[in-house]
Every structure is written in structure tokens, then in C-alpha cells.
């Protein structure tokens, strides 16, 4: 034991760091779970220690060059070794993940203070961190799948914490993600057999033809499912209703997006050769555009903060998918930059919702208004993040969106327009959110005393403000993230520099014009209805749209619902077939046998005359047969 520790220390930041990233959060997670109820503060310290260690180690990872680790695992011919690899791509995503996880974890400690399930949540949280590290570090597709699937179990566990009696949302998440993971498994099988190795570092991009197309689509659908793009999105708004907000902030808000984008980019860039303008590229862009527009459209009409944010979590994935689908250097860079930005502002926004909920007990925008004077710092953080997500310069969202607009325009006007429509809806819905929640006349839910309402505690404000501040930093000094991201693609992006002010002034002006339209739209809506929360009602209740929105609100367009209807139909058919077969065995067969038996008993009634007739008929039969066969 001592030798092991000594060798670990002597090797310093060696290859041991790779599995330490997985082992330390897992072990500490167990300790957190086992800690007695009386030692809450010690447990919290342990939890923070785990996250701090994770963040520190991730920074340590940055110092490593390309490094691989092989441990024999489920051996065999195919050689499923426990292969980990750290290189610049995984390094950066792990750092972002660790940073966000640390801040959201800090928030969670404060948020969960009075909840009964806090130990279980913190346990799941640390396990999630370990699994995310594992997924990002895995160099073997099978090993990656192992961590990827384990995340599904943790996801389910976190979803049923708050509401154990009604597990519908959790089951929905499980089914949708399960389907996506199943497709991913299929994709991994195809990819491994095409590449001839499960090791990612050994793979060379496979041209997209024949079976490779199927493998590519399966891999991409698996990644899209993790990221929450359509058609795997519909569990997120359902989960938002009940799940603890730190969960929403960390899983659909940040980590799942990071993982999904990571796999998407690797699939398009490392495993397969996705060519710009190819049909696969168009397909992915269409998925992205549809997700972007429909997610934004649904977010626009929400009057409940958590649901609004969760629809934006879907809509922002649309941007990323759209950008990856272009297969252009500017698209990849934009996608990764937007992924980072989204993790920052989306988790911060969810945390704001958590802060408001912990103070007022609700996040329904119809019940709260004018909170800005009671919770100024929360308001500032929310507004900063809202400006980021709406794409206002000089925030980070502006720069990543400009890159995506650039890529979309280069591929097709339709996609550019879709992206602009998405930007309009994002801006409009966040104008509504901020106006309704923080400005206007004061309105509080019943039971909340005006005098006692204070700003969120420091442990909540710190993460929110830190994330918001990072948003501003990454906007103003966008060279910092962009130089790292650009380095990932090596010669692919050489010769162009994406940092600094966007190159095309026209695009910037058009984007600003869209923002201006959103502001005007908000002002018109506010003027008509007199309430910030109803500022987009003129779009919601516009003729035609109203019917569509009603249907969407009733989940008529939910792929899960359609899928489940098909499943129910299928199970009904199977049941009918099964019943039919049972009927043949249990009823038809028995009745036939019973009937034959009763007929035979009629002919065996004890009459000697009848028996003789039987015997003589037998003789006649034998004679006839012998004549026939002669």
C-alpha cells in the first residue's frame, strides 16, 4: 500500500492521474453517502473537498501531453482493454466540467440544506462527476459506452429523488436516453468493426459510404440523445417541474451538453469523414435547425421559469448541432465555443431560478414580479447571463453565435434564417423573463413577507456571479478559450483566426437588428398587455399559432408520446397474438380433445354388439387395405 502511494507520488502527475480522476470522486461519493446524518457539515466539507480535488486534478491534467493508459479488462480477441487517454480535447472539456461542477456543487449545498434526500443527491452528484470524467477520458469506445450508460442510471436516480411516487418523468428520461444509448451501442459496434479496433486513438476517419452511413447515424443519434436534441428532448421540460434545480443546472444544463458535443465532434471529425455539403451534413443541420427553432418557439410562450430555461437548454443544443453539421472549421470552433458558453450561462440561469425558488417558493412568472429590489445580485447575475444567451456584445454568447451564423450562412441561407429566428425568440423570451421577474410592480406569492425577503445567501450568489463573470470574461477576452479550441483541430483550422471581433460587419449588424426587433416586439407586447410576463402573448395567441401551441402544450408532438403510442399498439398486438395462442391451447385444443373423447366414449358404451361391429369393420379394413396395396 505504502509502496503504491510512494510510486504514485514519485511519478507525480503521471499516467496515474487518469484513473485517479475517476477513482477519487467515486470513493469520496461513497464516504459522503455513508456519513451519518449528525455530521452534515463534515459531509459537506468532504463533498466540497472532492469537487476541489477534481478541479485541481483537472488543472493538473492540462499539464500533461498526449498520454495513454492501458489496463487489461474484459480481454478477448477484440481486446476490450481499459484504455484511457488524455489529450488536448478531453483536457479542456474536463476542465470546464470540473469548474462548472464545483460551482454548481457549492450552490447545491446551500440549496439542499433542508431537503431530506441531500446525502443521496450529493452521492449521485459526485458519481456523475466521476462518470463524466471517465467518459471523456476513455480511449476505448466500449469503455466510453460503459461510463455513458452508467450515467443513465445516475440520471434516473437523481430524477426520482424529489418525487418518488410519480416516476413518469424519470421513466420518460430513462426510455428516451435508453433508446439513444441503444443506438449508440449499435453505432459503436459498427464503428469498431469498420475501423478494426475499439481504440479511438487508432482510428482513422472512415469515408461515409455503405454501412458506415448507418454507423455514423447511430453514433450521432446517441450523441444527440445525450445532448438532448430532438427527438430525444422531451424529457427535459417534464423533468424541470420536479427535479432539484442543481440537477437541472448540472445535467441537462452543462455536463450532458459537454458529453454530447464531445462525441458529436469526435464522430464527425475523428471517426468518420463528414464532408461539408454532403447529405449527412445536411441531415444533421436540419436536426439542429428544427431543434433550435422549435425549442425556441416553445420557450417563448412559457410562463414558468424552469420550463422556459429547459426549453432553452434544448434550443441552444440546436445551435451546436447546426454548427457541427456544417463540418466547416468555423462551425466546429463555433460549436465548441458555444458548448462552453452554454454550460456557463445555462447553469447559471438554472441556479438563478433555484435562488428565486428557495426565497419565494415558486418560479412561476405569473406569481412573482419586481424581485429586483429585493434580490439585486440575483437580478444582476440573471441579466448578465440573459444578455449572454441572447447574444449581446460583448458577452461570450455573441461571439459564439456569430461564428455559428457565419458557418450557417456559408452552407445555406435557410439555416442562417433559422438561426436568426432562434436568436429572435431567445432574446424575446429572456426579455420577458427578466422583465417579469425583476422589474415592474412588486408581486409576491402568498405567505412571503415583503420585509423578510432578502437576496440569496452568499453560497448561492458566489457560483451564479462567478459563472456570469466568466461569461463576460470569455466574451471580452475571447482569445483565451478560442485559442485553446482552435488548437484542437490542428492544420484543419490553420490559417484563420476566430478570436477577436467578428470579421464580417454585415453579419454583426444583422444580428443586432434582430436583437432590436426583439426589443421592439417586447415593447409592443408590453404596451398592449401592460404586463412583462404577457409581452409575447400576441405571438402565442396569434391566429394559427395558437392551435399549434395548444397541441404542443398537450404533448401531441412529443416524440415520446408518439413512440409510446406505437409501443402500446405493438404490445396490444402482441398480447392479442399471445391470447390467441393461449386460446388455441387452453380452449380450442381442450375442447377438440374433449369432444373427440366424448365421441369415443359414445362408441365405447359397453354394448357387445357395437364392439363386434368395431371388430368386423377392422377386418374389412384389413381386407380392403390388402387388396389396395397388392
Amino acid at each position, binding site marked *: 500500500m505504502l509502496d503504491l502511494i510512494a510510486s504514485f507520488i514519485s511519478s507525480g502527475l503521471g499516467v496515474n492521474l487518469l484513473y485517479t480522476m475517476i477513482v477519487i470522486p467515486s470513493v469520496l461519493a461513497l464516504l459522503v453517502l455513508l456519513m451519518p446524518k449528525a455530521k452534515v457539515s463534515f459531509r459537506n466539507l468532504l463533498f466540497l473537498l472532492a469537487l476541489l480535488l477534481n478541479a485541481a486534478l483537472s488543472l493538473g491534467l492540462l499539464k500533461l501531453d498526449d498520454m495513454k493508459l492501458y489496463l487489461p479488462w474484459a480481454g478477448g480477441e477484440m481486446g476490450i482493454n481499459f484504455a484511457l487517454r488524455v489529450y488536448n480535447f478531453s483536457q479542456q472539456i474536463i476542465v470546464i466540467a470540473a469548474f462548472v461542477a464545483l460551482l454548481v456543487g457549492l450552490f447545491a449545498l446551500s440549496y439542499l440544506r433542508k431537503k431530506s434526500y441531500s446525502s443521496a443527491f450529493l452521492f449521485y452528484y459526485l458519481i456523475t462527476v466521476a462518470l463524466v470524467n471517465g467518459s471523456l477520458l476513455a480511449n476505448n469506445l466500449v469503455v466510453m459506452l460503459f461510463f455513458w450508460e452508467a450515467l443513465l442510471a445516475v440520471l434516473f436516480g437523481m430524477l426520482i429523488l424529489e418525487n418518488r411516487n410519480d416516476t413518469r418523468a424519470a421513466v420518460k428520461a430513462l426510455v428516451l436516453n435508453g433508446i439513444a444509448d441503444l443506438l449508440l451501442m449499435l453505432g459503436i459496434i459498427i464503428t469498431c468493426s469498420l475501423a478494426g479496433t475499439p481504440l479511438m486513438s487508432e482510428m482513422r476517419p472512415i469515408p461515409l459510404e455503405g454501412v458506415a452511413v448507418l454507423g455514423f447515424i447511430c453514433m450521432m443519434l446517441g450523441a444527440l440523445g445525450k445532448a438532448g436534441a430532438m427527438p430525444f428532448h422531451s424529457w427535459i421540460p417534464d423533468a424541470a417541474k420536479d427535479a432539484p434545480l442543481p440537477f437541472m443546472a448540472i445535467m441537462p444544463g452543462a455536463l450532458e451538453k459537454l458529453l454530447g458535443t464531445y462525441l458529436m465532434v469526435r464522430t464527425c471529425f475523428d471517426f468518420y469523414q463528414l464532408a461539408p455539403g454532403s447529405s449527412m451534413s445536411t441531415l444533421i443541420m436540419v436536426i439542429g435547425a428544427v431543434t433550435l427553432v422549435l425549442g425556441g418557439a416553445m420557450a417563448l410562450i412559457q410562463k414558468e421559469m424552469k420550463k422556459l430555461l429547459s426549453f432553452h437548454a434544448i434550443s441552444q443544443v440546436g445551435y451546436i448541432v447546426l454548427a457541427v453539421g456544417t463540418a466547416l472549421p468555423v462551425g466546429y470552433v463555433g460549436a465548441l465555443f458555444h458548448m462552453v458558453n452554454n454550460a456557463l450561462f445555462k447553469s447559471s440561469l438554472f441556479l438563478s431560478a433555484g435562488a428565486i425558488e428557495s426565497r419565494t417558493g415558486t418560479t412561476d412568472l405569473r406569481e412573482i414580479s419586481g424581485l429586483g429590489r429585493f434580490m439585486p445580485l440575483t437580478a444582476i447575475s440573471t441579466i448578465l447571463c440573459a444578455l449572454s444567451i441572447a447574444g449581446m456584445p460583448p458577452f461570450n454568447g455573441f461571439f459564439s453565435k456569430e461564428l455559428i451564423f457565419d458557418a450557417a450562412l456559408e452552407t445555406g441561407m435557410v439555416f442562417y434564417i433559422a438561426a436568426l429566428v432562434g436568436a429572435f425568440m431567445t432574446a424575446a423570451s429572456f426579455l420577458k423573463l427578466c422583465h417579469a421577474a425583476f422589474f415592474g410592480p412588486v408581486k409576491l406569492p402568498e405567505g412571503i413577507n415583503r420585509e423578510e425577503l432578502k437576496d440569496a445567501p452568499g453560497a448561492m450568489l458566489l457560483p451564479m456571479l462567478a459563472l456570469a463573470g466568466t461569461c463576460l470574461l470569455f466574451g471580452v477576452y475571447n482569445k483565451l478559450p478560442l485559442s485553446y479550441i482552435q488548437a484542437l483541430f490542428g492544420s484543419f483550422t490553420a490559417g484563420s483566426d476566430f478570436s477577436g471581433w467578428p470579421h464580417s460587419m454585415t453579419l454583426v449588424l444583422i444580428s443586432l437588428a434582430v436583437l432590436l426587433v426583439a426589443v421592439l416586439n417586447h415593447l409592443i407586447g408590453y404596451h398592449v398587455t401592460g404586463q412583462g410576463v404577457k409581452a409575447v402573448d400576441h405571438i402565442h395567441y396569434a391566429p394559427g399559432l395558437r392551435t399549434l401551441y395548444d397541441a404542443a402544450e398537450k404533448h401531441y408532438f412529443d416524440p415520446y408520446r408518439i413512440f409510446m403510442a406505437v409501443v402500446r399498439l405493438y404490445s396490444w398486438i402482441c398480447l392479442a397474438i399471445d391470447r390467441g395462442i393461449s386460446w388455441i391451447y387452453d380452449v380450442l385444443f381442450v375442447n377438440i380433445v374433449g369432444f373427440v373423447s366424448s365421441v369415443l366414449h359414445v362408441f365405447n358404451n359397453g354394448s357387445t354388439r357395437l364392439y363386434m361391429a368395431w371388430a368386423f369393420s*377392422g377386418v374389412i379394413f384389413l381386407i380392403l387395405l390388402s387388396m389396395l396395396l397388392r
Partner: protein
Amino acid sequence: MPDQFSMLVYSFLGLPLAALVLFNLFGKRVMTKFYMPVGMGICLVQMLSAIVSLVLLSQYNKDAITFSQFWNYQLYEGASYFSPDTFSFLSLLCIGLVGLVTFLVAYPVLPDRRFQFCNVTLVLLLGMNGIALVYDLFSLYVFMEVTALSAFVLIALYRDAKGLEGSFKYLMMSAIASAFILTGLALIFLNTGSLQYDVVQAYLANWQNGPNPVLTQIGFIMLMSGFSIKAGVAPFHGWLPDAYQSAPAPVSIILGGIVTKMAGVYAIIRLVGEWLPGSSVVNVAFMFLGLLSIVLGAMSAIGSTDFKRVLAFSSISQIGYIVLGISSGSPLGFVGAVFHFFNHSVFKSTLFVNSAAVEMQTKTTLIDKLGGLHKQMPVTGTSNILAFLSTAGIPPLAGFWSKLLIIIAVWQAHGGVVAGVALFASIFTAVYFLMVQRKVFFGPCREEWKDVQEAKFSIRLASVLLSCITVGVGCVFPWILRFLGAQGWI
């Protein structure tokens, strides 16, 4: 083989005869006391002699022990009166075994009729032993009638209405059978001038070129129909369920266990299996009769409400398997049929012993009235399920192997459809037996049977002995098959 050993064979006819004479010399009162030692002694000696003879036959590599003392010393050169071969000795072994079991069961079941029962049963044994030993068709017929007559008396042992009715039906059908057999024998004798087995066999091998092929054919059909009536092959089976059901319990054992087989199936195996293996007409005819018996017996058994009647229909079904095995015309089918002959004796006797036990303890054999007897009668219940499983052909019990051989042989000879029907019908076997087992032995015990005792010791002994044979033979069967293969019989 030393000549002295052929003396062994006399025990099969001489012992029952001597016992019969002695038995009646001393009068009823004395002999009732010696009922058990006499009956069991004769049966045990018979089994022992049969086993020793079987061992001797294989030891000296002979086909049969031929001798012709007492009667008609030299008919012609090389002719003989008795010529038991391996199959005969196997039959004699079965007769001894079933006889032993019958005596064991009859002791507690028929306390008031021991003397009469023992007398008639000795005649019955004598008749069956004769069937197994003789070497010409007419003597076969004579012993068949001896067997049948004593069976009539045994069925009507109590002279009650039920017994007399069953006996009468058997008598009527046997009379028809006798007429058929005698006509058939006459027609064959017309052509051959002798009824010695070897002469008839030689003639049948080439009957189409004989003087009167049509008459021979009709004679053969008559003969087969007569034997089929005696054996209870469908559609000649009508009398069988009634006779079995109405007979006293021990008589059912010997009837179901061995009598119908010796009186009918034995002759069918001899004639069809040994002498006409290649004849397609006969094979197809017996294929149809066999399939009809299997299906009809199983179907009728499913609807029966009386334990003994189920067993009777099951006998028809199982005899169908034997006939089907014979109809394949191959050595494999022949061996399978002979083994099924043996196995059926064992497991059907077990079942009838158990039905006798149930009948004695509860005074009924109606399935619907019984229920949950397993707890009170564990030995009977357990041996019953073993026998059921053996009948249904579940490995590793004896019945599985013989059925397997038969079905393989049938598949080779008649194709998959016939074999499939035979296999499918064995599912029915499992169905009706599980039904009976569940209703009689399993489930909650009925109020009226709470105080039922386990069967008497001698009955238990009989069923345990037979169950041991079923399991034991099943376990050593692969070696038996290997031995038969080494002998070149299959």
C-alpha cells in the same frame, strides 16, 4: 450347452401343473395357509429359471433351446415341440414378475377367495407359459384358449353383476377371435400341411408363389384379426376397458400387465415381427392399427373418470406403440417393441397395483371423488408418478428408451409424419396421467380421506419392487443397448 440345463425349461410347465395338483390334493383349508409360499415360490422359480436360461443362451451363443419330449416325439427330422428363444424367456420373465406381484397384492385384497384365486391363476400362468414355449401355431392357439378361459373365470371371481358382464364381453369377443384364428389356421394349414413355426415361416416368406395366394392372404388377415382382438388393438379393443375395469383389483394387474400381451401381442410379434419383416402390406396395415390404437386410446383415456379405466385405455395406447414398432419391420423396431413389451408389463402392473391400493383404502376408483392422497399414501403416490413418467416416456426411466427406439425405427420406416403423430400422442399420455396424478394424489386432501392409511405391506412391496425395476432398467439401458449392438441385433 449341457443337456441338463434344458431341464430348466420343464419348470415353466411342470411347476404350475404340479402345484395345481398338490394344491387340490390337500383341500381348501390347508392350502389357504400355504397360498403365499406356493404362489410366490412358483413365480420366483420361474423368474430365476428365465434369467438363468437367458444367461445360458447368450453364454452358448444359441438362438433357442429346442426339445420335444412328451408329445409326438419325432414329427419329422429336426422338428420339435418346444423351442423357447430369447424373446420367449423375456416373456416368461415378465409372466413370473407380474404373477409374483399379483400374488402379493391378492393376499390382502382377496382374503376370502384365496383358494379359488390361486387355483385359477396357476392355470392362467400355465397357459401363458405354454404360449411362450410352444413351437407350432395350433398349440399356441390351445394355450391361448387356456389363458383366456382362466381369465374369464378370474374376471368373474366374485360372480357379481359387474364382473360377469365384463367376463361375458371378453368371452364373446374371444369367441369371435377363436373363430377367426381357427379359420386362419385352417387356411394356412391347407397350403402348408404343417403349422410348425419354421414351416409356416418358410411358406410365408414366399406365399405369393404358393398354390393359393388369395386364401393364404385371407387366412393371414383372419389370424391377425383374431390376435388383434385378443391383444386389444384398436378397432378390436371394445371389450378391453370394460373387462379391466370390472375385474377385481389383483386380476386387473395380471390382465393389464401380461395376459392380453401374451394372448395377442406375443403372437403378433412372432408372426409379423419375426416372419414377415419385409412385407409392406402387413407393415402398412399394422402401422394404421398402431396409430389408431395410440391416438384412440390416449383420447379416450383423457375423458375417462375411473382410475382403472384410464389405465385400460392407456394399455390400448401403449399396445399401439408396440404394434407400431413391429410395423417398422426393422430389427431396431423389433427390439424396441420387445422392450416396450417388457416395460409396459412393469409400469402398467405398477399402476394397477397402485389403483388396487387406492381402491382397497378408499373403496372407490372414481377420480373425481379422490383427491390429495399423496400425504397419506406417499409410497403409492411416488411409485405412481414414476410409473406415469415411464409410460409418458420421460428420461431416464425405462419407458423412455423403448419409446425412443420405436420412434426412431418408425421414423426410418414410415417417415416423419407417422413418428410425429406417435410423439404427439405421447404428450397426450402425459396429459391424462398428470391429470389423474393431480386429481388423485396431489392437491389438498379431501375431508373424507383424512384418515386413509397407507396400503398394506405386501402391496407396498409390490409397487416398490416394480418402481425399482423401472428406474433400474432405465438407468442401465444404455449398457443393454450396447450389449445388443455388440450381439449384432440392432
